[in-house]
């Protein structure tokens, strides 16, 4: 008898296969008669497009597994783009690595702050991260005086950074590495076990002597850190530090997580599910765009998909 987790994973995988088939069938054809959807360029484009949300949704999975939520990831991403661009264009450093490291560490610090406040005050994560979503957005805008910091196309440090980190291989590779990391940590480490246990039953976790606060602080720190990493990639891809970047990304990330079968109430979920959820969203977007569906209609269709995906995976009781 397969356990219910496997069954649900199989369902979301089936949904992905269904959408893939639909995308192939409805794909417009190129002049040589091949389906555009299946072209290598298009497929890698999809992967590259989902990579940023994909990275956010990986750490979001951990947060949601503990029974929390992180609404601040979009704002942290914006902060990270701003810090990256400032360091690269204003001569604060002559080394690309220093700029990236600063941005990622600043983002991780914001995440750690989220975690500490949540663990220490026991205010709901929704409220704490809603506050930091607002506050960190403000910080990013204040740092940049509300301006985009452009990264040029010349031969300077910033341009060199952008040309490296907007490479498809780098972006997709970063997502793939992060996915592997999150997968292994959840399945194979003590920390991963604690993440699930805390979200499953926090009271029981207390009675089992688990480090509840430390676990929470770490998942929000990771969420900040990987939002920062996504911000670095965003800055490279868009050639700018943008304090208005990443608006509503947290919602896309949450959507990918729940489509992947992770329960918002915590304790149950998987990285593989989240990856499938992210792919479903990516393939769907690509399919609709290839068919020139209005982007507003695209949002409406996504709305239906989210509800449907969660409805099929509901446990029957």
């Amino acid at each position: 008898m397969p356990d219910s987790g496997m069954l649900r994973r199989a369902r979301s995988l089936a949904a992905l296969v269904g959408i893939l088939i639909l995308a192939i069938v409805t794909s417009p054809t190129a002049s040589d008669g091949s389906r555009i959807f299946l072209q290598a360029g298009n497929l890698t484009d999809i992967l590259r497009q989902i990579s940023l949300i994909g990275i956010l949704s990986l750490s979001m999975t951990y947060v949601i597994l503990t029974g929390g939520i992180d609404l601040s990831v979009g704002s942290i991403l914006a902060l990270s783009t701003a810090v990256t661009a400032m360091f690269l264009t204003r001569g604060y450093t002559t080394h690309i690595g220093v700029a990236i490291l600063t941005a990622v560490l600043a983002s991780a610090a914001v995440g750690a702050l989220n975690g500490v406040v949540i663990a220490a005050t026991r205010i709901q994560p929704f409220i704490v991260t809603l506050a930091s979503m607002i506050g960190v957005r403000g910080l990013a805008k204040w740092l940049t005086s509300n301006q985009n910091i452009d990264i040029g196309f010349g031969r300077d440090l910033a341009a060199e950074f952008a040309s490296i980190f907007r490479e498809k291989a780098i972006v997709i590779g970063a997502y793939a590495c992060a996915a592997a990391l999150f997968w292994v940590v959840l399945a194979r480490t003590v920390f991963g076990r604690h993440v699930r246990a805390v979200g499953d039953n926090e009271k029981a976790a207390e009675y089992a002597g688990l480090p509840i606060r430390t676990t929470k602080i770490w998942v929000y720190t990771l969420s900040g850190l990987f939002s920062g990493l996504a911000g670095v990639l965003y800055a490279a891809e868009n050639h700018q530090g943008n304090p208005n970047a990443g608006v509503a990304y947290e919602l896309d990330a949450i959507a990918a997580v729940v489509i992947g079968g992770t329960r918002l109430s915590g304790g149950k979920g998987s990285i593989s599910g989240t990856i499938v959820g992210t792919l479903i969203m990516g393939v769907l977007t690509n399919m609709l765009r290839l068919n020139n569906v209005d982007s507003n209609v695209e949002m409406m269709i996504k709305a239906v998909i989210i509800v449907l995906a969660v409805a099929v995976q509901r446990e029957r009781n």
Partner: protein
Amino acid sequence: MGEVKTVSEILQAEGITKHYGGVYALKGASFSLRAGEVHALMGENGAGKSTLARILAGSARADGGTVRVHGEPVEIASPLDAQRLGIGIIYQELDLFPNLTAGENIVIGNLHFPEGRVVDFRRIEDFCRPFLRQVGLTCAIATPAAALSIGQMQLLAIARALSMDARIILMDEPTSALFDDAAERLFRLIAGLRERGVSIVYVSHKMEEIFRVCDRATVLRDGETIGTVETQSSSVDEVIRMMVGRELRIMARAGRRAAGDVALKAENLSTAKLKSVSFEVRRGEVLGIAGLVGSGRSELGAALFGIDRITGGTLRIAGRPYAPGSPRAAMSAGVGLLPEDRRLQGLMMRMSVLENATLAVLPRLSRLGFLRMGQEAASLGPVARRLALDCPWVTAPVSQLSGGNQQKVLLARWLLLNPDVLFLDDPTRGIDIGAKQDIYRLIDELAAEGKAIVLVSSELPELLHCADRILVLNEGRITARYDAREATQEMILSAATTAVPSPGAQR
């Protein structure tokens, strides 16, 4: 008119059965209430008193049996039905809406308060005033329920029942959360209600109260009605005998071991719920703790395990001072706690059997934070065999197991940790006989290995069977200490239910 009906019987319940899953809470219980009497419903924890009260109030449905009101068979399918029949209930955990005002709490869902489309505060005020006066609640009608004291909330709940024109009021352990003066006020109110012909069903296991307040008492045991007595012509001893029931042959455990060194010693241990509790438990000894729910027996575990803050007194483990600040600290000092409620405090229901069992010992089963999966899987084997754990496979979700096997998974967690002092809080609650026997055997074995076991149990025969010595807790104090070979259920129950005289010397 064919047969003569006893007109004075306002409420009769006959052959009431109710089961939850495979467990029977009521097995053909009967109960009959006269108009204008205060009638106690008594029994040990789990005897079925509260279930019967809930059925009469429409918040639980009986699987079988009949209920008559004024001799007419009735169907009480919902609290609204009960309201129409004039039956009101005051729950132990008062079912008020904390954020609504006192007045709103009275009128909401009240059939006697015709609702308009618009909330009319003056009308609410006019409606509520007489009932609040009747129960002697002096708060403003606009006071939120949450701002009231427990005693006031109870009066509010009674006022609500009266406003619904209840002629029968069920009170489920009404004094369990009350201080002395509030309880006094409640007793006076009950007397006043009886004067006016309201019938009251008083669910409790506190002897003094019952003999003071009630006219008659019906005793339930294991879901069956044992009998009804007039309190005038009965005695505490008689009622206790009825509650305890069958003379169980107490099998002394074969070959009592000589107890070893003192493993845990508490001196004047005090917390919010415990008052100056002193005891010691030795290696190889099983110390039984008896007491009603709320007596402080679970709080003793919470204090020993670093969950409740200790406000006074000292603890020593193997002679060394011990001041647990967290369960983690308690565990590293060699103390384990099997909590009272395995679903709420023990198990991760969405995780597997194996994951639940190894949760507290993961550091030992890992290297550099990475789990050694093979070692983890192997670790459970011997423990599972020892517990006679019956599960299809160790990766099955623990939620799929029976109650007894779930409890064994939780015990496995502690066997893996192997603490010197193990506090078992009602380990056999709600599990089948077979699993109970396995757990008794395990307790015996652990003691034989030199562990110090503290065993809390709601079942007195179980305590008498498993424990070497027994302490009785009552309202946070130790009221009796017995050698288990000399104690009887009657002695223990009497010490657990007799009111503790408030000591002048202590706070």
